[in-house]
């Protein structure tokens, strides 16, 4: 039951992009087309879940055990950077098609604040390993949901007449604001 709460909360109520503001850079940068949005979301889900597992283990068995939790930022980001490198290498060998499709997005995932953010949040929210995995996967789902909805809207926006000064990023943000408002409607389900 607890897990349902975590999932609904991460996907809707506390959507990491629209409510917690994590992952904005790719949100704006990658969301012009639904295809790329979907690809990015998949990659993020994979890296996010994996990263949360590894960082959780490191926090519990190394940082907390040795009392050096001030090293959290450095170790976490290094883990994430290495994981992304690893994923790149494996993907190149195992599925070159997918690797090509993701292209530049893969290295960009390292600087996706959502990954580091979710890793830190898992520790802050005091989740155990299983709860952490569920949280990470659900957060990535929420990220994907927001990204895909947003990119579909943006594809439509490109086709209509937007005032010149609003074109591109400004109107995207206004739309994101409206989307965030819509998501606020989910508060109160849990």
């Amino acid at each position, binding site marked *: 039951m607890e897990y349902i709460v975590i999932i609904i909360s991460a996907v809707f109520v506390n959507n990491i992009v629209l409510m917690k503001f994590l992952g904005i850079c790719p949100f704006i940068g990658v969301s012009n087309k639904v295809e790329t949005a979907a690809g990015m979301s998949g990659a993020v889900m994979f890296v996010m879940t994996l990263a949360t597992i590894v960082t959780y283990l490191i926090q519990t068995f190394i940082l907390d055990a040795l009392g050096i939790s*001030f090293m959290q930022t*450095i170790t976490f980001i290094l883990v994430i950077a290495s994981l992304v490198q690893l994923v790149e290498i494996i993907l190149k060998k195992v599925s070159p098609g997918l690797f090509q499709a993701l292209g530049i997005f893969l290295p960009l995932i390292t600087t996706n604040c959502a990954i580091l953010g979710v890793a830190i949040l898992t520790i802050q929210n005091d989740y155990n390993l299983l709860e952490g995995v569920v949280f990470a996967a659900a957060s990535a789902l929420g990220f994907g949901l927001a990204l895909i909805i947003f990119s579909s809207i943006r594809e439509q926006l490109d086709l209509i007449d937007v005032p010149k000064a609003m074109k591109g990023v400004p109107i995207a943000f206004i739309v994101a604001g409206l989307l965030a408002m819509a998501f606020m409607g989910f508060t*109160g389900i849990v």
Partner: protein
Amino acid sequence: MLIALVVITFGASTALGFVYQFTKEPIAAAKLAKKMDAIVRVTPEFNNEPNTEEYKMPIEGDTLYFYPARMDGELVGTAVQSFTKQGFSGLIKIMVGILPDGTINEVAVLEHKETPGLGDKMERKKSDWAAQFQNKHPDNFNMTVKKDGGDVDAITASTITSRAFCEAILRAYNAYKEGGHQ
């Protein structure tokens, strides 16, 4: 190649260890000041050191902390650090001042991530909402929101936060009733 990276990481870690040692005391002092500030706010006047008389009670996997406040050796109130995980954005930590007879003296918020402008009204500096808990005794004041049949006026549009707040107060009170020292 790897050596360069190791050297840099080693240098960084050393520098950090140094800064950590340097800031350890001020950080601890800041945390203590925050706690003491809350204790002073929720209990009647005292002249002992509540922090040195801290005792704990394990509750549902977590811990509540008790700080007795005494005036000239006699107990005038106990500050109980309580919590709730049912806040709208998760964990809320509060300090409840309980008089020896169980009456709630005052409540102060320690930590929360509630929505600014809505749930954060439980903070005294944002609104007087929490004043309704002053001098109420859970035996004759139903410590739940009116929506749930209780006596507490919830914050407008922040029932979840209000409900969680009440839960935290009740947690403190029940623990105090069971194991509060005199």
